C-alpha cells in the first residue's frame, strides 16, 4: 500500500481540506495540501467536490431560511417530530407508488428459453396475473455504479484485508463471503439491502444482487422499484417496498413479502410464469416441488428493517500522535435509531466490589503516571473519562472460583437507576491488547440488585471489536500489579502495587459493548442500580477483561406519544 492510499493519510488530507474551508490553514499545511493535490487526481477531485458542497451550502444559506429543524448541539435522545413526519411522508409515498405500480402494465424479465411455452404452472395471485410478455416495471436505468456500505455490525468478509465500513464501495461482479455480522448496502437507485452472515453474494449491477446463499432483506423506496435478487433457483423483482430472500446452501429459495409486492420466477425445471406476491405472502422454490404462494399465517417474517441495536462508534480526544485518550461522545443505536450521547449525558458508576488474585490483576494507568493512593484509585474507573485508566483482570483465585463459579468478581453501582429501554442500556469500555481475541474478552454479567432478576448473561462479542475501525487505538498505558490479594474495594485502596514489565508500549484499542437489561431478565421500563461482573471459568482459556469505563445510558422518552 502506498503512503497516499493509506486510510490515515486520506484522513489527514481530509482534515487539511476542512481547515482550508475554515480559513485556518497554516503555511506548512498549505504546502502539504498542495503536494497531495499535485500528485493525486483522486484528491484533486475530492478537493473540488468538498469545495462544491461548501459553496452550495453558502448559496443555500443566502437563498433560504434554515431548511432543517432547529437542533441544539447537545443531542436529544428522543425521536423528534421531524422524524415522525418524515416516516409518515415516506409511508404516504410508498402507498402512492404502490397504486401507480399496480395500475401499470406488468414486466418480468423473461429468458429466451421461456418464450413460447406459455403454460402456467401455478395459479397467479388474484387480480395480479401477468402473462409472459407483459411487464410490471422496467428495471432502473442507472449508471454502472457499485453500492456503498451504509452500515455494518461486526461484519467480516472472508479473505478481505479490511472489514467493510460505512462509505466503502463494493466491487461489481466480485463474489463476497460474509462470514460474520450484518451489512447494510445502498445501491445507486436508493434501494437498500441488509445481508446477514453467513451469506455469499455478488453485486451483479447497480440494481441487481446475486445471492448464492444466505439472507438478504430488501427495501426499495419509490424510485428504486425493479431491484432484482437472483438466486440459484429463482429471480425476484421488487415492485416497490420490502421483502426478504433466504437462499439455502443447496439453492432453495424462500421469498417473503413484508410490504408492497414482488414477483418471482423459478429458473429451474419447467419454465414458469412469474408469480406475484403481495404483502404478507411467501413462497419457497425447492427442487422438484411446484412453488405455491402461502399466506401470512404460514410463518414469522425474517425481514430485517435495520441492523441490530448496538454501539455504533465513539469519539475521543486525541494525543499528538493521533491516539485516543478521553471519551467525548458515543453513538448508540437504540430502537433502530442511532443516537449520539455526549459524555455529560452518560450515567456514571462507582466500584463497590472487586476481586483480584495476587499479581494477577491490578490497575491500568497512563504510561509515566505515578500510582495514585487511597481514594484517588477510585477515580481511575469512576471519575475520569480516560480510556486507559481502570481495573485490570478482576478475577478470583482458582480454588475459590471452583467453589463459587457464579460469585461476582466486580460490582459497580450507578449514580442513578438505569431504565431498561430499547437496545443497549449500559456500556462497558475495555482496554484490549491487539494480540488478544478479535471479538474481545468474554465476561458475564448479572443484576447486582437484591430484588433484581438473577439471569446470568454471557458477553462473547463486543459491539466494537478489534476488527472494527471505530475501536480507537489508545495512548500508551502501564499495568500496575497488586502484590497481595484483593477481596474488596478497601483492599484496592490500600494494596501495594508493582509496575509490571518495562515501559514499553503495547498496542491497545478501546473495545465497547452495549448491555441490554432485557438480556439480564429485566422487563421494559424496569431499572437496575447495581451490576455484577462474573468471570468466565479458566477452563475456557480466556483472558479477563480490563474495564476502563462503565456507564449507563439515559432513559429514552416514551416515543409512542
Amino acid at each position, binding site marked *: 500500500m502506498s503512503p497516499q492510499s493509506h486510510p490515515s493519510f486520506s484522513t489527514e488530507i481530509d482534515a487539511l481540506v*476542512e481547515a482550508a*474551508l475554515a480559513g485556518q490553514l497554516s503555511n506548512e499545511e498549505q504546502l502539504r495540501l498542495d503536494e497531495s493535490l499535485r500528485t493525486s487526481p483522486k484528491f484533486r477531485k475530492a478537493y473540488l467536490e468538498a469545495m462544491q458542497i461548501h459553496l452550495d451550502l453558502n448559496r443555500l444559506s443566502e437563498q433560504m431560511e434554515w431548511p432543517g429543524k432547529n437542533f441544539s448541539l447537545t443531542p436529544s435522545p428522543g425521536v423528534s417530530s421531524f422524524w415522525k413526519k418524515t416516516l409518515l411522508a415516506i409511508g404516504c409515498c410508498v402507498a402512492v407508488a404502490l397504486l401507480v405500480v399496480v395500475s401499470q402494465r406488468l414486466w418480468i424479465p423473461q429468458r429466451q428459453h421461456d418464450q413460447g411455452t406459455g403454460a402456467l404452472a401455478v395459479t397467479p395471485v388474484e387480480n395480479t396475473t401477468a402473462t409472459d410478455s407483459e411487464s410490471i416495471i422496467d428495471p432502473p436505468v442507472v449508471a454502472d455504479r457499485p453500492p456503498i456500505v451504509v452500515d455494518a455490525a461486526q461484519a467480516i468478509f472472508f479473505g478481505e484485508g479490511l472489514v467493510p465500513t460505512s*462509505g466503502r464501495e463494493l466491487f461489481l461482479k466480485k463474489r463476497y463471503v460474509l462470514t460474520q455480522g450484518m451489512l447494510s448496502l445502498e445501491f*445507486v437507485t436508493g434501494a437498500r439491502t441488509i445481508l446477514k452472515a453467513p451469506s455469499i453474494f455478488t453485486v451483479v449491477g447497480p440494481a441487481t444482487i446475486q445471492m448464492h446463499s444466505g439472507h438478504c432483506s430488501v427495501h426499495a423506496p419509490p424510485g428504486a422499484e425493479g431491484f432484482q435478487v437472483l438466486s440459484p433457483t429463482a429471480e425476484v423483482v421488487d415492485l416497490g417496498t420490502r421483502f426478504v430472500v433466504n437462499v439455502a446452501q443447496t439453492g432453495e429459495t424462500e421469498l417473503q413479502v413484508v410490504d408492497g409486492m414482488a414477483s418471482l420466477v423459478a429458473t429451474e425445471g419447467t419454465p414458469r410464469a412469474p408469480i406475484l406476491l403481495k404483502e404478507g405472502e411467501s413462497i419457497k422454490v425447492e427442487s422438484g416441488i411446484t412453488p405455491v404462494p402461502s399466506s401470512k399465517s404460514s410463518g414469522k417474517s425474517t425481514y430485517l428493517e435495520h441492523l441490530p441495536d448496538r454501539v455504533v462508534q465513539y469519539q475521543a480526544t486525541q494525543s499528538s500522535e493521533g491516539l485516543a485518550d478521553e471519551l467525548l461522545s458515543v453513538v448508540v443505536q437504540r430502537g433502530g435509531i442511532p443516537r449520539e450521547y455526549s459524555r455529560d449525558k452518560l450515567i456514571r458508576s462507582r466500584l463497590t466490589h472487586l476481586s483480584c488474585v495476587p499479581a494477577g490483576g491490578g490497575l491500568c494507568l497512563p504510561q509515566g503516571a505515578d500510582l495514585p493512593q487511597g481514594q484517588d484509585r477510585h477515580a481511575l474507573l469512576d471519575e475520569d473519562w480516560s480510556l486507559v485508566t481502570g481495573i485490570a483482570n478482576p478475577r478470583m483465585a482458582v480454588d475459590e472460583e471452583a467453589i463459587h463459579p457464579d460469585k461476582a468478581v466486580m460490582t459497580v453501582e450507578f449514580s442513578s437507576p438505569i431504565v431498561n429501554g430499547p437496545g443497549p442500556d449500559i456500556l462497558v469500555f475495555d482496554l484490549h491488547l491487539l494480540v488478544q481475541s478479535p471479538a474481545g474478552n468474554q465476561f458475564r454479567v448479572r443484576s447486582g440488585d437484591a430484588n433484581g432478576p438473577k439471569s446470568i448473561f454471557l458477553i462473547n462479542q463486543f459491539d466494537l471489536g478489534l476488527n472494527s475501525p471505530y475501536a480507537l487505538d489508545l495512548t500508551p498505558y502501564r499495568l500496575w500489579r497488586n502484590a497481595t490479594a484483593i477481596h474488596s474495594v478497601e483492599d484496592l485502596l490500600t494494596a501495594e502495587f508493582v509496575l509490571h514489565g518495562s515501559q514499553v508500549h503495547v498496542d491497545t484499542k478501546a473495545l465497547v459493548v452495549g448491555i441490554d437489561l432485557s438480556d439480564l431478565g429485566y422487563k421494559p421500563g424496569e431499572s437496575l442500580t447495581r451490576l455484577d461482573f462474573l468471570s468466565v471459568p479458566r477452563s475456557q482459556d480466556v483472558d479477563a477483561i480490563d474495564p476502563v469505563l462503565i456507564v449507563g445510558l439515559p432513559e429514552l422518552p416514551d416515543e409512542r406519544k
Partner: protein
Amino acid sequence: MTLQMVNTTNRSNTISVAVPEDSLQQKFDELLARYRSRIVLYLFSLVQQTADAEDLCQRCSLIMWRKFPEFDQQRSFLAWACGIARKEAMNYRRARSTDRLQFQSDIAELLAVSLESLEEEQEKHRLDALKQCIQSLPETDQGFLQRIYWEGAAFEAVADEWGCSLKTFYNRMSLLRRRLLRCVSRRLNLEILDQQR
C-alpha cells in the same frame, strides 16, 4: 447592428468571420450561465475565500467578454475560462501582501483538468437536492451545518461547543460533507431516472 470578428476553425485553417454582436452576446451569456458556478468553484479552489472567488468571477466575466471574439468555439469554454481565471487568481494572490505562499500554477492547471471531469449539474437542481439531503441528516450534523452556514459560526467555535478538538471536528465535517455529496448525487440520479421514464 454591429459586427464582431470571431475566430472559427475548419479542418486546416482558422478563419475570421463576421457575426452579429447580438448573437455573440447571446452565445456568451448562455455559456457563462452554464459554466458560471464551475468557474466560481475553480476560483474558490485557488483562493479559498468565497467572497474573493465571487469578485474574481465578476472580473473574469468582463475579461472573457472582451476576449470572447477570439475564442475558438470548437474548444471547451470551461477550459478557456479557467485559463483566464487562473491568471486573474494569480494576479490577485500576488497583489495580496498577506499571502505568504507562492501561487502553484501547476496545481491550478491540474485542478482545471479535474474540474472538467466533475458531473455537470444545474445549480438549482443541486441546491434542491442538497436541501432535501440536509433534512435527512442526523440531528447533530444538522446542528453543525446550521451553526456554520446559517449562523456564521467559526469551525473552532462549533468544535468548542461540541467539546471536541478542532482536528476531530474537521474529520467529522469531512465525513458529513461526503455524506451530503453521496446523497446529492443519488438524488440527481433519481431525477434523471424520472425524466427517462
